[in-house]
């Protein structure tokens, strides 16, 4: 069997989790790194669980890598670099991945990190009822895991799946001490009794208030600069900003457009922004019934909306427009889609006339066969963020004015939203995914049997491209497959209306150095690289 070695390297972990290029923020004022000190960081979201295997909130990702590490991690070009691994090889048929592990690594509870520990984590992930979403999505194509020797693990797949590398770099793929897996009191909730290999140790969690890490003195590499770091849960953005400007916290994340002027106008503070990976925030048209089963109506809806104007109104020029379902920072992004559609009310009206929606009722909405051109968007209140409900209202006003389309927006509780989705009582579905590999997001959103296929699309062409993309080991050919896919769903079939690329913001005192966004993921990074100048 011909083996193609992709990467065998011992890249210093400092480089990996650390200062890899474009992810950094402006920290010139903080000077050279210094050790010591305690940092307080105000964050928006309290994690539902502290067990990385159960991770489901992109907003909680900045916590995970403080005390846990996975076998690989992302570089900033869409590739992978070893982390707890020392290298890996894929077989030519793409069915076997052999991962070499670092030696001499211990968990913070003293347990040794080795192949058996990695296997124990996979066994746990596949245990019934433990992590159903991981087992059904990320590990869907995993047949078995073999311990070759103490520092070598072999992943056997049922079909070629390059996304296994994305899993190995994900929080769900983080390696937890096998001792903790056996002994933790509330394993799925996680907490101080879950040991990892990371540069910090979680030593205190006060629900509703804060989470506290202290430096892991036994870390295998350069120890963390900070002695301790406290993350305070401050859900209100104005409170976070106030806490920062008054010096009660040194860093915050999550600064909405309305509050950014307060930071940029303050000479002792810095503000930086990172675009998230995954799928752009988009409207998905439900093609299973009228009116969006007609491609003309889908095209007209996109033409009726001037996305730039709407974004400017709602986000005051801080949002980055999306042109594809894949986020603009992804190596799979198809730049050629930019400027190819939308913002043409005249064409929208002509298309709708041609599609038979050529009369208007008393309220100015278009009508066909006595039925108004009404489409419904149902938003689940607990998951509405980034003022998406306001954005929806702006879209509503715009499409009414420019083309007489009646977009009905309702923000409801989760149960009502799920019920509406299940009964198909919606025409527009809104979503963004923070998957590090956009391909993983598209598998869920576009495949005929996709777990979040709210388009209702059943298309062999799309499924074929997704399969090819998942099997393509070479970066160039993989990008080509996804370019075809984006051309099909965005340009040819008008299935999706991409709106903006979700972003994260970090605001900090200039005394804080080394703050950065995680490469590829684009979310705030861990505290490992951060220091506090004296």
């Amino acid at each position, binding site marked *: 069997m011909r083996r193609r070695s992709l990467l065998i390297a011992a890249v210093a972990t400092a480089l990996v989790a650390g200062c890899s290029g474009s992810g950094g923020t402006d920290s010139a004022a903080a000077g050279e790194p210094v050790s010591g000190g305690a940092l307080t960081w105000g964050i928006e979201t309290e994690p539902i669980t502290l067990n990385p295997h159960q991770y489901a909130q992109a907003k909680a990702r900045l916590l995970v890598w403080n005390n846990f590490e996975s076998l690989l991690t992302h570089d900033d070009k869409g590739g992978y670099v070893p982390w707890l691994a020392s290298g890996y090889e894929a077989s030519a048929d793409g069915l076997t991945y052999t991962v070499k592990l670092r030696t001499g690594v211990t968990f913070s509870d003293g347990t040794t990190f080795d192949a058996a520990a990695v296997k124990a984590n996979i066994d746990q992930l596949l245990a*019934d009822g433990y992590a*159903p979403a991981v087992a059904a999505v990320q590990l869907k194509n995993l047949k078995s895991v073999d311990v070759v020797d103490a520092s070598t693990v072999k992943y056997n797949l049922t079909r070629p799946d390059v996304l296994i590398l994305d899993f190995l770099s994900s929080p769900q793929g983080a390696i937890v001490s096998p001792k903790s897996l056996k002994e933790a009191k*509330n394993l799925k909730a996680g907490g101080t009794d879950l040991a990892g290999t990371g540069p910090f140790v979680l030593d205190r969690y006060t629900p509703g208030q804060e989470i506290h890490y202290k430096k892991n003195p036994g870390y295998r590499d350069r120890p963390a600069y900070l002695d301790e770091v406290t993350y305070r849960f401050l859900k209100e953005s104005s409170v976070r900003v106030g806490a920062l400007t*008054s010096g009660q916290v040194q860093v915050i994340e999550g600064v909405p457009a309305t509050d950014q002027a307060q930071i940029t106008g303050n000479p002792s503070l810095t503000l930086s922004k990172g675009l998230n990976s995954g799928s752009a925030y988009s409207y998905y048209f439900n093609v299973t019934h009228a009116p969006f089963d007609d491609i003309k109506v889908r095209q007209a809806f996109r033409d009726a909306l001037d996305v730039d104007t709407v974004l400017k109104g709602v986000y005051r020029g801080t949002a980055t427009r999306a042109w594809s379902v894949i986020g603009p920072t992804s190596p799979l992004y198809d730049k050629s889609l930019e400027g190819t559609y939308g913002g043409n009310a005249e064409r929208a009206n002509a298309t709708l006339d041609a599609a038979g929606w050529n009369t208007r009722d008393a309220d100015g909405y278009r009508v066909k066969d006595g039925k108004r051109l009404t489409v419904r968007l149902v938003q689940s209140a607990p998951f509405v963020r980034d003022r998406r409900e306001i954005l929806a209202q702006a879209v509503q006003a715009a499409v009414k004015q420019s083309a007489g389309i009646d977009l009905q927006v309702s923000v409801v509780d989760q*149960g009502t939203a799920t*019920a509406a989705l299940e009964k198909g009582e919606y025409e527009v579905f809104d979503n963004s995914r923070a998957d590090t590999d956009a391909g993983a997001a598209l598998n869920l959103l576009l495949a005929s049997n996709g*777990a979040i296929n709210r388009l209702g699309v059943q298309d062999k062409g799309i499924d074929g491209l997704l399969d090819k993309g998942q099997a393509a080991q070479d970066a160039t050919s993989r990008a080509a497959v996804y370019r075809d896919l984006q051309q099909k769903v965005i340009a040819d079939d008008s299935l999706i209306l991409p709106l903006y690329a979700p972003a994260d913001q970090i605001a900090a005192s200039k005394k804080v150095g080394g703050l950065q966004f995680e490469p590829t993921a684009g979310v705030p990074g861990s505290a490992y690289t951060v220091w506090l100048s004296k």
Partner: protein
Amino acid sequence: MLRRLATGLVVLWAAATAAYLALLAAPGDTVDSIIGDGADTPLIRAQIVREWNLDRPAVIQYVDYLWRAAQGDLGRSYLLQRPVRDVIADQIGPTLTLAVTAAVLGILLALVLAVTTRRPWARRVSSTAELVLVSTPSFLIGIVLLSVFSFRLGWFPVSGDQGVAALVLPALTLALPVAGVLTQVLRDGIDRALDEPFVVTARARGLGERAVLVRHALRHALLPVITLIGWLFGILLGGAVIIETVFGRPGLGQVTLQAVTSEDLPVVLAVVVFSAFVYVVINTAADLAYLVIDPRLRRS
């Protein structure tokens, strides 16, 4: 006493059952709320159903819940994956501290204001302030207090359950509207009591105006306030949801909010039963307080 206990138990059972039925009637089922906006496939659903024994009929699940609850087992949170007892126990302390401090602060403030602002001009100023406080959302009061006393002056920390300093602003935010309502009720009660014949008698005995006010009129005016204690508790718990979010304080309010929005049934039920329990206790205490304040009630 035995009858009171039995009534209390019935109230607890009724509260739990009503909450159970309400959640059952809410759209979407338990599996939906556990899945949230994540991946949704038949395989994932099947695992969730197995994990939580959701394939049993609703009646069986209900009876099973009551049976376990009677033995002190409140179950496990769907969302947080921890025993409900741990989730709640961690959070009761901070919320009670906040609620009791706010209640004491509110009542004291009301007493002082009602007694001291008897002159017409003071009265006008005070009642305007009360009206403003009562009609301002506590969210706004909290943000204003924070901007002034924490962000600008730096007297108090913004967040957390860290000693007395961190308690001042949230307790004040919660106490101000309460004080607003109680002052109005008290002042009205004092006004009415001062018109009563016994006040004339007291004055005739040579009692000073202050003594008449505090020893006689205030005592009469307290009765309606005691009746409001049950309401007060509702306000404090409801207010805690917002205050705890604004101030980043741990507490039942945040737990409740999260549990309700994600339909985390075991936690919601536990919070409802706990609230009903406190309500029963407080109303019993209020009944007893009547006897202390009003000797006429003791005979019956």
